[in-house]
């Protein structure tokens, strides 16, 4: 563990950096020679593209528009992701596994982070490769010529039932670790515990909602006069 061996940055590391820079330059130039950046016809506000896709790195959020209203998919979810990323060092106070690859010492942290990371990538993949006209699902071998129509056979839960199920989901979720693993709550303290559990529950709410929409055709879990979830 206490490896004392040191390298001089000049020339050892500087040499590696130099080689990396050259290799990347070659890769970029070859890529630039082989593939041209896209340039379609001139922008026209009256002629919309179908489908209109966001840049690939935001297409995951656009994909979430199928399952959530825009204020959630486009505003709340990215804002919550950014906030959650920022608070990670302040809620994960476990000093184990600093500066090394370890799974056994940090199971909870790594499982949840990888889950979120993969979800982000999978949503991008679906939105970028599998969505065609009218934002319908087109497998790679299906032609976009035969445009699929929107099928809207959706229903929403009663406001009362919706509210109760949300309370059950978040309430039970909040209680669970406290009941099963008492020392986890003690180690975190109240504020940290609430933030950890809330961010984890919010993250898993996304696949839960996707599941409800795909399997039970549920549009909204909670309908209120002001907003729908």
């Amino acid at each position: 563990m206490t490896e004392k061996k040191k390298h001089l940055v000049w020339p050892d590391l500087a040499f590696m950096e130099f080689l990396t820079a050259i290799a990347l330059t070659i890769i970029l130039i070859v890529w630039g020679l082989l593939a041209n950046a896209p340039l379609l016809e001139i922008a026209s506000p009256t002629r919309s593209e179908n489908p209109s896709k966001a840049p690939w790195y935001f297409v995951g959020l656009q994909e979430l528009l199928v399952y959530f209203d825009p204020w959630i998919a486009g505003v709340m979810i990215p804002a919550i992701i950014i906030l959650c990323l920022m608070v990670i060092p302040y809620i994960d106070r476990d000093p184990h596994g600093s500066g090394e690859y370890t799974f056994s010492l940090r199971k909870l942290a790594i499982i949840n982070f990888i889950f979120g990371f993969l979800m982000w990538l999978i949503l991008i993949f679906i939105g970028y490769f599998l969505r065609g006209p009218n934002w319908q699902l087109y497998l790679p071998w299906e032609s976009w010529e035969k445009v699929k129509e929107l099928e809207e056979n959706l229903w929403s839960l009663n406001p009362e039932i919706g509210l109760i199920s949300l309370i059950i989901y978040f309430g039970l979720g909040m209680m669970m670790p406290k009941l099963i693993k008492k020392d986890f709550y003690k180690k975190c303290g109240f504020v940290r515990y609430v933030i950890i559990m809330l961010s984890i529950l919010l993250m898993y709410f996304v696949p839960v909602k996707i599941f409800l929409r795909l399997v039970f055709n549920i549009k909204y879990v909670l309908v209120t006069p002001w907003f729908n979830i």
Partner: protein
Amino acid sequence: MKGKNLRNKITDSQIYKSVFRHTYTDTKENRTLQIKSNVFLHLHPVKIPSHAMKIRFTWCMGGITFFMFLVEVITGILLMFYYRPVPEYVYLDMKYLEFDVPFGIILRNLHRWAAHLMLVTIMLHMLRVFLTGSYKPPREFNWVIGVVLLVTTFLLSFTGYLLPWDQLAYWAITVGTNMIRAAPVIGHEGPFALLNKYNDVRFMILGGTEIGANALLRFYVLHIMALPAAAIIFMAVHFWRIRKDGGISRPL
């Protein structure tokens, strides 16, 4: 002999000595000075632990992200010579760049592909830093700065996406900015909206209710000036703090 004399004359001169502070004979002292007396290289410490040299530990993703940023700056500056952010000219400039400017198309390709690559590498860098637990004390705040840089990179890419002013650009930014009008309170279609179409947050970003000349200019200024400046400042803090927080993370 004459050549050597001339060489000594040059290296002994006041001008040479004012520029190059040390000789280049391969001694340990010179290897140290090479890092210490160079403003760019002194981002690095003189010595690093050997695990920091291992690709399987660092993935080299932070460094590659920085390199991509440099590529973006250089190609971006060159592209600016041919680009006017005015709806009447902008698409013609794009065509001019593609068909007339020597190496113009390659210049644009480099800018585009390096941008894509930068987004991939910055996400992988974040993943690596997470997996090695490198956000743990004393590096908490540097992780937060890293998140700021991540968001800045996304915004840089997003603002650049509109600039070609083609159908792809126009409708992608339409999709993106339409979500903003659903923002709670500050967007005119969001829950608890306080503002209307003409003064909400989307209007502020686009400089209008539609994507037009104002939006193009705003995205351009953000893309070439405001966001790169922010990125540079946060990068400076990010790199400086790596050193101040004890260098690259290592097992306790």
